[in-house]
């Protein structure tokens, strides 16, 4: 099955080789169509209009929440909060939960392979509350090292990625979550990279919080998700204040609305939520077994081709054990920007830089990496072109 034809960008740019889906995925026609249809036929605000059109918009928006809820197997759909993106979701937790429940000396455990979005909100909480940040280590081959001693009686939150955006590593979260449970710490899972590649089941994981962005999941930019257990969301104070999140407002106080409205101040990205629903329906229709088969084949092929080039060092797992379709690499003497520039001459999009993971770069003592990330619309032929181009880049700098 050729999924490439579902993505209109490849029709308008037939020569495009897009190997940067970990930054943002391309969007299938079904997502664009459903959003378009909303604006053309059902556009109105949600939760407020006293007319049928608004009721339709509200139904579409809340339907999207139900789709997300069953996609991640949440117990209740009001445990799904729509945000702008995963970054906002982490910030929501650090602000609303962190400010209310963490105190000076309490510990938050992260890993050295986290994206800045799962580091900086906690550094900000450290500045506000005097909490202590600890980090699980990463091995030289890019695996997470779970040292259970770092989870102590003082640990209040463990916040960890389900798949590294640089290394592709998929850490085993189960023992980490079990150890967190044992000391009563809450667990946040950053599913930003993993959510498009594998089944997410918040109940099986027993995660307290789980975050992801829509735009890496074939959905539009500007829509993200925070999942949290209802009892925790109920205990938390609201994050942003404004319309829609309130039950009652007086001149000197307010009463917050119930879930999920409590955490969705202001008019939400209605069309974005609808686009996210369409994207999830699209992914469900293909199914994760098929998605994984395609992506694993592509990733394995990419790794095997890169390994034939003696000057390429892969940063991250070199085998297919517990890894996703993100492959970072460096070449001694050629800066990743120059590699990406070489790729750009052939219409190939790869990412070069620190990938919002400066602590990880510092740990590996490299300034940056070049990164190939793959999705269902990629092909082996594209990887062949990329590898041929890489050889040309090397030859250009080493004639």
């Amino acid at each position, binding site marked *: 099955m050729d999924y490439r034809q579902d993505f209109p960008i490849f029709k308008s740019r037939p020569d495009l080789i897009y190997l940067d889906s970990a930054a943002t995925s391309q969007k299938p026609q079904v997502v664009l169509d459903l959003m378009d249809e909303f604006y053309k036929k059902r556009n109105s605000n949600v939760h407020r209009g006293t007319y049928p059109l608004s009721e339709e918009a509200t139904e579409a928006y809340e339907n999207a929440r139900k789709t997300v809820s069953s996609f991640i197997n949440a117990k209740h759909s009001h445990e799904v909060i729509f945000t702008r993106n995963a970054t906002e979701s982490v910030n929501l937790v650090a602000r609303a939960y962190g400010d209310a429940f963490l105190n000076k000396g309490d510990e938050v455990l992260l890993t050295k392979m986290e994206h800045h979005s799962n580091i900086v909100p906690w550094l900000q909480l450290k500045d506000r509350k005097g909490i202590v940040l600890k980090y699980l280590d990463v091995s030289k081959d890019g695996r997470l090292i779970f040292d259970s001693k770092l989870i102590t009686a003082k640990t209040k939150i463990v916040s960890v990625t389900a798949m590294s955006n640089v290394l592709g590593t998929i850490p085993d979260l189960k023992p980490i979550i079990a150890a967190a449970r044992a000391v009563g710490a809450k667990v946040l899972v950053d599913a930003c990279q993993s959510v498009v590649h594998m089944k997410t089941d918040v109940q099986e994981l027993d995660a307290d919080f789980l975050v992801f962005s829509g735009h890496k999941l074939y959905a539009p930019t500007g829509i993200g998700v925070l999942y949290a257990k209802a009892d925790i969301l109920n205990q938390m104070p609201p994050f942003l204040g404004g319309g829609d999140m309130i039950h009652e407002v007086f001149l000197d106080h307010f009463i917050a609305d119930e879930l999920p409205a409590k955490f969705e101040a202001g008019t939400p990205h209605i069309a974005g939520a609808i686009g996210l629903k369409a994207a999830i329906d699209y992914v469900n229709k293909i199914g994760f077994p098929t998605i994984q088969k395609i992506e694993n084949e592509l990733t394995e092929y990419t790794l095997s081709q890169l390994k034939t080039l003696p000057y390429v060092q892969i940063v991250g797992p070199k085998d297919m054990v517990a890894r996703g379709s993100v492959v970072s690499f460096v070449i001694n003497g050629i*800066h*990743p*920007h120059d590699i990406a*520039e070489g790729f750009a001459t052939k219409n190939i999009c790869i990412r070069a*830089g*620190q990938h919002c993971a400066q602590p990880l770069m510092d740990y590996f003592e490299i*300034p940056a990496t070049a990164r190939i990330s793959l999705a269902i619309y990629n092909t082996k032929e594209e990887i062949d072109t990329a590898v041929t181009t890489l050889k040309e880049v090397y030859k250009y700098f080493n004639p």
Partner: protein
Amino acid sequence: MDLYAQNILDRYKTPFFKDKKIKADLKRHEANHSCGDAIDISLVTSGGKVADYSFTGAGCAISMAAADMMGDLVKGMTEDEILKLTKDDIYKMLGIEISMRRSKCALLGLITLQNAILAEQKKPLRTWGDYDL
């Protein structure tokens, strides 16, 4: 593959001013963290003018070549003249088209140099917003 103009490639591979040992009286470190370029510039000043120039760093061909070519440009210049240098002066020096995505690569050396002087003069430092990228 023809990636960069020959002058850029030459100065990247065989720099004149990189890792040159000088007795600097002005030093400054700047970095573009998103792309992973970092640079340290050292200057020797004499009679209010730049007498010698050196830099160390790690970065792409454009950032390193630009930092190296800047040595030729600024030797003999006064601090005021250096502070007046603009984006266009550097692009002219490079002699190639610089796309928006490479503008910070091309100008990392300039911002480092200008901030070295501004820091010494205890004046507000420049940020990327000052360069009209």
